[in-house]
């Protein structure tokens, strides 16, 4: 796991369970605003169907550096928090580092007992889509 991702896991698991939700809330508040060009070109974004809230992602870049973009409504802070966690763990990493993140990463945050399983699966959905799009970058050899 890359050092950013490991730092996120450490931050969560260091805390008592109740405080982990507070940290997730802080992550949700730190999700970067979506780049304006996506507003004009929504087709560049892919909807994450696994999330009940409307969440969109875009994955761009090359083998050395992949950048991630997320859009999620203010009224869905848990989903925004998950997006922000993935952003902290993976944005700017190499394609290989993204693909190397364990699929089980969402469960490593120690939130499974606090958040219904379906919501945690929504985060897995986001991660698997990020990986799929990263594999497309690898396959294209960009």
């Amino acid at each position: 796991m890359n050092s950013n991702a490991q730092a996120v896991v450490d931050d969560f698991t260091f805390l008592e369970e109740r405080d982990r939700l507070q940290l997730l809330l802080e992550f949700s508040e730190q999700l970067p605003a979506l780049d304006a060009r996506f507003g004009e070109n929504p087709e560049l974004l892919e909807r994450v169907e696994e999330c009940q809230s409307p969440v969109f992602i875009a994955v761009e870049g090359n083998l050395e550096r992949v950048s991630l973009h997320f859009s999620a409504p203010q009224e869905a802070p848990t989903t925004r928090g998950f997006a922000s966690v993935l952003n902290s763990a993976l944005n700017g990493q190499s394609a290989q580092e993204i693909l190397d993140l364990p699929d089980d990463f969402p469960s490593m945050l120690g939130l499974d007992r606090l958040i219904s399983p379906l919501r945690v699966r929504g985060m897995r959905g986001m991660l698997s889509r990020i990986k799929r799009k990263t594999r497309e970058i690898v396959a294209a050899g960009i």
Partner: protein
Amino acid sequence: MSETSRISGYAHPDVLVTTEWLAQNSASVKIVECDEDVLLYEVGHIPGAVKLDWHTELNDQDKRDYLTGAQFAELMKLKGIDRKDTIVLYGDRSNWWATYAFWVMKLFGHEDVRILNGGRSKWIAEGREITKEAPETGAVEYPVVERDDKTIRAFRHEVLEHIGKPLIDVRSRPEYTGERLHMPDYPNEGASRGGHIPTAASIPWSSAILEDETFKDVEALRAIYFDATGFDPSDDFVAYCRIGERSSHSWFVLKYLLGVKNVRNYDGSWTEWGNLVGVPIAVGEEPGVFAR
């Protein structure tokens, strides 16, 4: 039709309050927010509201069941709610979890529980005050009341016996037909078979609400639940969904807005039925039949 005249047309108009009523009467009731999103309360809530988490607070954390009477009494004390208090529930997603919490509170016979018509989104859409401040909860006593699992709750063997009587599947159409169990790249939601319980009518929960998430008028509801299905309001009803939350919403509509006397929520719902060995399942658009 105005919201207040819609409310006065329901069988039990006293269980619904308007946002305006709540704004005027917030000091004399206990306001409880129950959301799907576990962080939404912290983003901002109605002043005076306490948070109730359906996942960690209403369910037993080990077995798949609700709290015991003693646990429920502890929960109410923690929230500062007295047995005689008027509780007003509201939440996100058109009050799914608010009606779910309403139903759980009725398992324990809390008498005066009400739903905020239109829920969280209507309150916010109207620009009403929200706060991040959690209220101080005073010390209260709450009696230990045994949970009543007979009157408004249905178990799988009872549902099996019920087949042929009014049964309502409130999930989305693709879940009813069985074409959607889980989606690409998505882990199975927890049922091994898709479809519905034979003879169940498909009435998605959202049929009961308007665009602002308040409930439709009683005539419109009667047309949907009785006229279109041929169900007799004096018969026994059971509603189900995936885990019992959306069907709490429809259970509320049937019992309190339409006045059906005997209606139960099957909280095991599809995550139980779709995994049970040996029970019948119908697939496709038609309710299907079940020959005993």
